């Protein structure tokens, strides 16, 4: 019973910070999938990048730079709107996850 209650609570608050450092869950929860596609290789717009299989170091830096505003070119304005949702540690996890996806 207790497990059920906990399960229901988790369901109800699916938006609260993800407990495990799970890149796949973060990728969805932070709405990355909305623009870059469910597996990182089907971007919404032709001028949004495919990111599946990208080098983790590179993509982590791009995320950090867009978040900080150091990178403000291209479509970064579109992405900056959600970057406050992602902590630096979570960025690392997402980058790690993306680097392992099939391009």
């Amino acid at each position, binding site marked *: 019973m207790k497990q059920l209650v906990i399960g229901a609570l988790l*369901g109800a608050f699916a938006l609260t910070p993800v407990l495990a450092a799970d890149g796949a869950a973060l990728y969805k929860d932070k709405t990355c999938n909305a623009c870059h596609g469910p597996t990182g290789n089907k971007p919404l717009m032709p001028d949004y990048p495919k990111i599946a299989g990208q080098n983790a170091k590179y993509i982590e830096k791009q995320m950090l730079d867009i978040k900080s505003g150091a990178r403000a070119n291209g479509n970064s304005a*579109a992405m900056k709107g959600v970057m406050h949702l992602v902590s630096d540690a979570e960025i690392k996890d997402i980058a790690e996850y993306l680097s392992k996806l099939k391009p």
Partner: protein
Amino acid sequence: MMKKLTLLAAAMLTATIALAAAPAPHKSGIEGKDYKWNAQEGEKMEALKMKGRVKEGEEAYEVCGACHLPSGAGRPDGTFPQLAGQHSTVLIKQMADIRAGLRDNPTMYPFAISLTDPQELADAAAYINSLCIPPTHGAYEGKDAAAQIAAGKDLYEKQCLECHGKTGEGNKEKFYPVIAGQHYKYLLRQMTEIRDGHRRNANPDMVKVIKPYTNEQLVAISAYQSSLVMPGAMCKAKPAAKKK
């Protein structure tokens, strides 16, 4: 004649290519001299006249759901507003304004233009209107919540109530949004942007009213508004874990 046609074709081709990945257009808004709020024109008027189809709207809403969630709840952190429970007129106006470049939203713009025509705007709005209202949303969470809400109530009743209604229900016919039960952080962000002239499709009457308010006052008003219950059909206590 032939030359003219060729020129026309070339112009059209250029337009199409430009459209493929064009940045959002920029339509003169609150900052312009000739701005008329909610001008009765454009695809908004077409969409408003159409009958929204819930079933087709569910499909159209799919791109929206990635951020606003399939439930239409948005996010308590205020990044994305709750859509469930909002007036269809308001939903259509905001979508049309973003598409027309009158409300700047670089994050949402590419999604907004993925809807093909006024009928899809009407459909998406109809689908959103068919959603039940999530029982919880982002509220003011400070220790002084009670005091903030009380102070906000006083302020709200002085100047906001006249348009947004006694219980924050807005006005569908007048395109005034429901603000009751919206995420606290979203309300605060929008009011701040309207006050500071950054929300370019704002109603000048509201801008005039809100101009003198301090940040602290906007916090209190947002706290109060988010403490109100959004009118409409609430979801059952256990939110449906709806499969996509």
